[in-house]
């Protein structure tokens, strides 16, 4: 119990956002044909007006996991003097992105019930 209180005491925004990362990234990839890692971080930062910053340490493992699950596919392209890896949704990924977003909405609604119980 004490540990739990301690955990919530030190929990910051980024910890709160962590679980929402997957639907956010999938939504972005659905809207744009293909994106590279840095572009995703910047796009999220821009859309949330700097409120949400995706760290590289969280983004790449997630993108790699989505790739392993077959939700995302990659293509490599030469950009001047370096190589860039682009991520795009697969057919399954496109279907899954809607499901993930619905799940996130349902979760937000549940949170709303807890925060504002009067609305129930």
């Amino acid at each position, binding site marked *: 119990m004490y540990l739990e209180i301690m955990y919530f005491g030190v929990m910051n925004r980024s910890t709160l956002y962590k679980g929402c990362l997957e639907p956010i990234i999938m939504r972005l990839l659905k809207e744009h044909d293909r994106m*590279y*890692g*840095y*572009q995703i971080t910047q796009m999220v930062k821009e859309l949330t007006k700097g409120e949400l910053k995706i*760290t*590289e*340490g969280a983004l*790449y*493992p997630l993108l*790699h*996991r989505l*790739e*392993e699950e077959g939700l995302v596919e*990659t293509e*490599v392209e030469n*950009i*001047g*003097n*370096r*190589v*860039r*890896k682009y991520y795009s949704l697969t057919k399954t990924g496109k279907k899954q992105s809607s499901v993930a977003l619905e799940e996130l909405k349902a979760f937000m609604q549940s949170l709303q019930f807890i925060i504002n119980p009067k609305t129930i």
Partner: protein
Amino acid sequence: MLSEEQIQSLFVFCKKHFVHHYDVQNELVDHLANAIEEKMAADKKLTFEKALEIVYAGFGYKGFAGIVQERSITLKDKCTKMQKNIFKSYFTWPKAIKTFCLFLVLISTYRFLDTYTQAIIICVFFMVLAIFEVVISVRENYFRKKQLKRLMITDMGTVSSIFNVSSFVQMFVFLNDPIYVFEKALNNYGFLGYCVFMIVLLLLLLVVLSYRNLINKVRTVAKKEYPLAFEIAA
């Protein structure tokens, strides 16, 4: 846009921070380069080295370690899944017919051989499979060493076999006289025992074949995505 020299220094930076695989380095170098370019554009006085320091700090206290670790786990899982799919394909249409025919050929030898010869054949078959697997592994290691750049995907492809046939066969070393043990089993169980042995051998053969196909598939994907890593070696 960063110069070629600066890009190369980013590769060196990645190596210094324990990112030894070219495929992982590539992604990180592009990310670092983008972030550095943006920082330097926003602040003209900012040097490349200082910008790199700031960008790297953004990766947190773990630096690249977390990304590398997660990547290796994901790739290992991916390769294992690929091999499982190849293995399963031997039991689905149309390959299942070939598998079944091979099984029939194997068990049809029963009536032409006495139990001692059957036991010898089973022993030799086990050894051949183990050697076949080792040869595939050694051959792949040779090709990996010839690569210009080390790739995590080819490294993981080699180590992620779903079953180690050679280690399994090595267990026979603990049997006092494997031929005698097999012969005794064949005498006790007859045709049923022979069928069981042949099923085991067939499954092991398919595991080794799926391992070989996995390695070839991984190599083809790697060559397509990172031709620079193979340029001279190819």
